[in-house]
């Protein structure tokens, strides 16, 4: 992988000031390492909680490790620890290269980095000591929310500065997604964490909470993820995106329809029906938009299918895109009210959540980690075999988890429909739940392989010839 020498726009350039390197490599590396650390915290939480489902929770009766609390640690660390840190790494790498300007301030970058890790530690502590907030995916304790709001704003200011410095020049696709997402993420966080908490109860509050859950995925994770794809895929394949018009359709379609989806998390609830129907229609509309994006990316790959074998980043990216198309197709189906009757509240939804969060965004993140790590440590990956193990273990794990839980969700839905006793559902689910934990172990094993490999790669001595090649991508520190 290391031998597609950088074709990233602007690579190798120093910023105007002459002294300051364009990309702050230490920050990129820091965010990647932090992302992996929190990923392990999140994975451990998921694994522990999954054992509750077959009554083998390893720490019963310990208040600080109450399974319900551990579940919230799991989901929050995945979003704010793993994904957010990873995305900052990707953006700190790509934004300066695309705009030609470095981030606003390296000091601010470090402040954001360390502050954010401290905040995450407090979030874990706060949730485990029983201070969770009742906003799904915003369980970060109420007294930490203001800090998060300020920190997100700091991070955004730092990254939006180079974009604003382009002074009205048309931007590359990636930056459309990033810049819009900056605004969305800040507004969404403020909306979701304060309005239902203090002002609007019941159905109105639930409508807002629904928007929050969905916007966190749809207006933070998704646009940043796609932005990174629009950056990394063409630069690794060394060819432009197939159709600029489709890029436009994809972005503007997503920007318009995605924010309208949120209430589909509460269908058949007491939220007014016009809102629920609106959410259903716009969810289907998103699926149409997504199809254009997928077509665009697969056409970009045309004639170069072999890179799926030779380049692991490309393989991760396109695997993620297949998962993305699957989840979005699923959305269009499962949002239909008759389907909702069966699958809502079941493990089908959990399957869907893992597919989108990990099989899509996790794959993209692992892909660009695989791409960036050798450049950051200035050494080629130590072992091709270990990269393959990482890919196959993780991919096998997440896809089997998805299939198991989807099947289980249908079974649960029909058992409820048939008015079978609740215990029947539990008894018949347990074999699936055991298997789910096993698939989780596969994911963890893959990630352990990757973490070890990254560590071993960073430690190995560098042959001179390789130094040349890898460093070609990046100017040596001035």
């Amino acid at each position, binding site marked *: 992988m290391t031998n597609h020498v950088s074709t990233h726009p602007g690579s190798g350039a120093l910023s105007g000031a002459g002294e300051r390197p364009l990309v702050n490599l230490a920050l990129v590396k820091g965010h990647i390492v932090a992302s992996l650390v929190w990923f392990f915290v999140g994975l451990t939480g998921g694994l522990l909680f999954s054992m509750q489902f077959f*009554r083998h929770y390893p720490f019963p*009766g310990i208040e600080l490790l109450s399974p319900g609390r551990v579940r919230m640690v799991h989901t929050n660390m995945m979003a704010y620890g793993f994904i957010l840190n990873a995305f900052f790494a990707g953006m700190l790498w790509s934004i300066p290269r695309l705009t030609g300007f470095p981030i606003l301030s390296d000091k601010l970058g470090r402040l954001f980095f360390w502050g954010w890790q401290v905040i995450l530690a407090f979030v874990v502590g706060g949730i485990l000591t029983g201070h969770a907030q009742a906003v799904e995916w915003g369980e970060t304790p109420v007294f930490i929310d203001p800090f998060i709001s300020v920190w997100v704003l700091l991070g955004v200011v730092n990254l939006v500065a180079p974009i604003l410095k382009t002074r009205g020049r048309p931007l590359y696709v990636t930056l459309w997604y990033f810049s819009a997402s900056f605004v969305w993420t800040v507004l*969404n966080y403020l909306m979701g964490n304060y309005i239902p*908490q203090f002002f609007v*109860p019941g*159905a109105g*509050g639930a409508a807002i*909470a629904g928007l929050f859950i969905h916007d966190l995925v749809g207006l933070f994770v998704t646009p940043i993820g796609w932005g990174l794809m629009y950056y990394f895929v063409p630069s690794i394949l060394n060819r432009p995106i197939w159709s600029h018009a489709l890029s436009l359709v994809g972005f503007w379609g997503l920007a318009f329809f995605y924010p309208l989806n949120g209430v589909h998390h*509460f269908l058949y609830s007491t939220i007014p029906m016009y809102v629920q129907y609106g959410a259903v229609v716009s969810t289907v509309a998103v699926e149409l938009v997504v199809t254009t994006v997928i077509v665009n990316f697969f056409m970009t790959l045309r004639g170069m299918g072999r890179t799926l074998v030779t380049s692991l980043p490309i393989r991760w990216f396109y695997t993620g895109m297949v998962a993305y198309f699957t989840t979005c197709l699923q959305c269009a189906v499962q949002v239909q009210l008759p389907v909702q009757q069966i699958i809502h509240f079941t493990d089908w939804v959990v399957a869907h959540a893992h597919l989108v969060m990990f099989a899509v965004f996790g794959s993209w993140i692992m892909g660009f980690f695989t791409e960036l790590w050798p450049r950051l440590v200035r050494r080629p990956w130590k072992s091709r075999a270990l990269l393959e193990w990482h890919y196959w273990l993780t991919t096998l794990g997440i896809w089997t988890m998805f299939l198991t839980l989807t099947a289980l969700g249908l079974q649960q839905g029909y058992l409820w429909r048939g008015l079978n006793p609740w*215990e029947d559902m539990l008894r018949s689910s347990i074999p699936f739940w055991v298997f789910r934990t096993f698939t989780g172990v596969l994911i963890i094993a893959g990630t352990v392989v990757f973490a070890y490999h990254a560590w071993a790669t960073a430690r190995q001595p560098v042959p001179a010839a390789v130094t040349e090649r890898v460093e070609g991508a990046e100017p040596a520190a001035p």
Partner: protein
Amino acid sequence: MNTRWLERASATLGISGFGFFIFSVVAMALGPVVMLRKVPMQTVEQISQNVIPDFYDLLVRYPDEFKKYFGDPGDPPDEAKMRQYFAEALRLGRKVYIAEGCWHCHSQFVRPLADEQLRFGPTSWAAEHQNELQLPPLFGTRRVGPDLIREAGVRSNDWHAAHFYDPQAVVPDSVMPRFTWFFEERKVPYENGVKIVPNQRGLAIITYVQWLGSWVRPPAEGVPLTASAAEDYR
């Protein structure tokens, strides 16, 4: 057609970033809020005017703990005091419900589907969530265990106490976690000298689940029904 203007930061930040987001909030969130403006939010004090019979039952069953954690309402119990304790218990119960992530395994609304009505009870309506204890709303998106918005009176206080202490002791197939920290030991002159009884959080969470849906349950004998509760009762 020249679309270059769509590619500038002003358009991506302004139109899609602010514009579309605000449009979505107005359409999807402000709409419901405005439509529900005539159903004012009830405070816990208003809710607690109707003390549920199970709260009196807790006083009878666990008098020492009740008095220790909430206060002594006298004999016969003073109604004003009971209302005040009830409000306290509901607030704390909801706090526990949130802290322990109960809402990630239990929902709090009945959908308008035949099987749910048969299993849980009447379909939810908007007004029953317009109160301080649904701030933030606890609708939930997952049912590992059953919906709880019609839980009032389905089980006895004793059942709940045993169930929170060890769900499998009551429902052998349960995968609900144990919540042993809702309990404490009390010295008694029998049964090896100790008995396990709910502590403050235990009393509060039992009160809270017994309250959920108390407004659709027929009033127990001898318990006064206020006008507003009678109106809500369907």
